[in-house]
């Protein structure tokens, strides 16, 4: 397996993992925003 291949796989999967985390954290903020109702 060539280094370029490994790098491609690692970069793509790490990018997907970061996107996943960002999407879930972004959505989860909605709960905090709703809690402004009873500030």
């Amino acid at each position, binding site marked *: *397996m*060539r280094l*370029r*291949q*490994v*790098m*491609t*796989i*690692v*970069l*793509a*999967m*790490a*990018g*997907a*993992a*970061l*996107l*996943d*985390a*960002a*999407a*879930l*954290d*972004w*959505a*989860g*903020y*909605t*709960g*905090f*925003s*709703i*809690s*402004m*109702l*009873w*500030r």
Partner: protein
Amino acid sequence: MPSAIWVRPARWLSAILAAGSAAAIVLVERGRGSVAASVFAAAADPEAGTSIASGIEAQITGVTVAGALALGAVLLLALAEIAARHQSRPNDQPWSAPLLALLPSSIGVVVYGRALRARYEGAAGIDPSLKSAHLREALVASHRWLDLARFGSWLAIGVITALVLVRARRGPVGDSGARLFTAGLLFVAGAISFAVTRSQASDHTPLTVLPAVVEDPTTFEGVPRLKSCPVQTQSLPLLRFRPEAVTLDGIPVDPRTFGDQLTVLFANWVTLNRGPSVPDTSALIIASRETPLERVLPYLSVRPDASWMVASIWPVPHPSASMGPIPRYQHCGRRFKLSESAPPISQYKTWGALAGAVDRSPSIFEAAPR
């Protein structure tokens, strides 16, 4: 190949869905901006409550739509990539793999959005005094879907990475600089998204429900601020001194009728569901620091040996990562007692001066109503 017919349209449709998801994200961010602006403009803007409600509505709808469109975009693109690979480049790396790893989070966001909608609407009929606690519990319960999706996402990333690496070891697979570049772009997109959502990640827990939260701090503008001020949750009659009028629980009073009104109020206290028993404090007094004591004294004199309470507010700002310190206040108050044997209260010229003396007193402050 028949599959080639729909590969290109599928890619286009996927791009359109992705653009729609981006638009929904913008809608959500605008809703969040609207909520944030209302929180800090509340003192001057009487429509802040409406603005918060519409900002929340935009978020709940936007999150669900953004998740659903992203899910559609990812699925379509993954299918198109699978078909294209089988058609022309069977030895290429399975490029659909990182796309499939995005599925758990997309599904999680959609389910979370739907759960939020159901629980938010379900809170509408709840008793107002319990609504905040109920809604907070509902928000925390909905967030569990995101936690589950996070677990699923990590699992998918691990399994897919392992499968792709094993496949790459088995035989010669094609690779190119273009693929490495695209993978790099995906990584950069992920890193940027991750970086810009860190403050939102820090604020994933809803605000706590304060037992004596002040819904409208402007009502307390100018009231004395006390150094020692216990949180006030007891139900008490509210005697408020405005520049133009004095009110008891919102109804105008004057010193001549105040005593009778207070007597009637306490006689019906339990019947009116104001509390389980008549309170030992005559009233919570809201007055600005500058209010002359000679304006207050006639009201205090109707119960010359009773306890009263100086109303104030206690700041409990929430240090959020996304909005900075969020101003929050609780009702608080210090009790004082009228007693003929104590020094005369008239030595204090203003309500603020009396409140200062009450605040400095290590025990319950006493003064004679003269």
